[in-house]
């Protein structure tokens, strides 16, 4: 089963995200701060497939730290950053550092949970294809050696 980590400092938000993503059939773990998230990420084996993290928690750019640790632990982990209150500068920075996408929490008239479910699905797909590409390259390399 695909494994997900949801990081947000608001209980209600964590609960809502977990419920929605579990409905999609994912195995969802939660963390309530960037500090917690880092511990959970490092103790996981195999690592999470996708990490969904809030941007502003302990710091206004805590999400960047989660992103950095997730990728450091497993280069193929996909990270989706959630931002509230249009923190565009941080969102752009997270894309630059390799996030899969960023979503704004409060877009009037957009059901962000459906959008997130879609994005997580796409992130899973990209992770699978990236891993399979690497596998094929590995197999090719091994055959070359033989």
């Amino acid at each position, binding site marked *: 089963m695909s494994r997900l980590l949801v990081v947000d400092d608001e209980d209600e938000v964590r609960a809502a995200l977990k419920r929605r993503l579990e409905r999609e059939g994912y195995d969802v773990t939660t963390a309530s701060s960037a500090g917690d998230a880092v511990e959970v990420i490092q103790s996981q084996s195999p690592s999470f497939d996708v990490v969904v993290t809030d941007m502003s928690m302990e710091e206004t750019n805590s999400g960047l730290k989660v992103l950095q640790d997730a990728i450091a632990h497993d280069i193929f982990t996909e990270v989706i950053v959630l931002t509230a209150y249009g923190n565009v500068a941080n969102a752009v920075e997270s894309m630059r550092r390799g996030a899969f996408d960023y979503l704004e929490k*409060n877009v*009037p008239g957009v059901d*962000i949970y459906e959008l997130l479910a879609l994005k997580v699905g796409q992130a899973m797909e990209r992770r699978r294809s990236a891993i399979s590409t690497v596998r094929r390259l590995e197999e090719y390399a091994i055959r070359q050696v033989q």
Partner: protein
Amino acid sequence: MSDCESTTQHAARAEEHGLRAEQFLRDLNSLFAEAVRTGGDQAFLQRTLDACVRAVRGRRGFLALVHYESGEVEVCNTSGEGWSDLGRKMRLHLAQETSRGITGHVALTTQPYVTGDVDSDPYYLRYFDDVKSEIAMPVLGPNGQTRGIINIDSERPNAFDADDMAHLAALAQAAAIALGIEGFRSRETALIEIGKTLTTTLDIESLMNKVVAMTAEAIRFEDCSAFLIDAQTDHLILKATRGPLADKIGAAAYHVGDGITGWVAKYGEPVRMEDPQSDPRWRGRLNELTTDEIGAFLAVPIISRNKIVGVLRVVRRKSHAPWFSNRFTETDERVLLTIASQLGAAVENARSHARLVRSERMAAWGELSARSAHMIGNRTFALKGDLNELTYLMGTLAESEQRREIISIVESMGRGIERLEEILREFRDFVVATQLHAAECDINTIVQEAVEETFPRRSKVRLKLVLGEGIPLLSCDEKKLKRAFSELIENAVSFQPEGGEVRISSSLLSPEERATERLAHGREYVQLEFADKGPGVAGEMKEKIFLPFFTSRVKGMGLGLSIVKGIVEAHQGLLRETGKPGKGARFVIFLPLGNQENGSA
């Protein structure tokens, strides 16, 4: 024997004469010294009068001062014997020819007068039975008018000669100097007091009140009023006054340019005149005295940072004695101008303080709203999750009347949340509106883009676009300005659902236009106009529409115009609504160009 006697008498008289001359010089010397040192208080005037009586060997005398408003001469000091309490408080009415007396005659002619035989004198009014001679000397003010009269009598016939006249004239001179110094001193004190008040008072209303009260110490007047220009409506608003107009404080008095006061506000020149009623500019509105009563009028502009911000005005009653001029002097005008210029600086001071407080409040408010918006945003997000789940669960239930009902409620909640998120967005926009990213831009391009993006393609509203030529590039935040223009266009269209017209124009203001709009000198301005033919903005709303959360539209939170104003002010520009209520709204934006204009340009 008789020769001897006459020689002795002669010697005695010569000695007495010498003593008197010596006494006179001593008196004169000490009086001049005192006049310069202390000014002309009551005690000084008494000593002067006593010296006068001594100098001319009079029996008794009095000193009377002239009241210009009432046209009366009032006795303030008496010397010698026989004065009744009534006599000490004597008043002569100069308007009545028969009761003027010698004192009144001197007051009007400003010339000394002497008579050696009062019984055959045409002016003399008998008050004491024993009087045979009388001498009267005017005390003149700096403008040559009579301030007072020194009057001395004698029981001897032909008592006063040319020497007496000369002595009295010298002593009267000392009194005149003392009174003059007294006047300057009280003026100086008043001006210093005004200066102090101006630098320590930051509330404009109480500032103006104090100044009006203290101006009374510096200039003689019946009443004084201070007006400030309200830039939104271009009216002079009465801010402070002393007399019968007190209940009109806060009322719009004149349109700038209207009446003499309005003229001063428009052209920034002082007006000083007698009989203002005969001036073609006279409107006779909102005066402290009735039109018939006003005898003299003086109004000066209050100028702050090269801009006319108001008018300070004083009036005098017509004198009851038509021979007296009750006009304001050049000195009065200079003093009032000094007060007005200090007041102008103080108004600027108070206004910039208010601006500072407001901007600090806005900053604190922005900070607070940013934080609460974040929190509200997160809660809303969680709520959206619950709603999403609810919608999902509803999908698993079998079709029923109840289910349809619940679905409609869920949909309504969804709309509520959507609205909440729109409000959050407006909040955020408001906070970031004033953070500029400036670059050199062509203002006409920005206007055109705003029109293309905002003006509906199919509309019953006609668009009139008049873009001025030769407008230099402007250092501005293109996106923010476009946002502001779009907001104004949207407003204009939405207020004319049955069709109408939106007129948008841009132009570079000429120096004359800048003066008319009372914009800062030495800086070029671009003017942008957004006018419609909708219902317009009612007078009392003209200020309020720019406040956050004020709206007469159902949709939107009413941050719209406050954001527009915030954006314009962040560009150091001005936003005004100058339309006529009922005829349509007219928003005018003045944006300063970065360059300081050259003197020659």
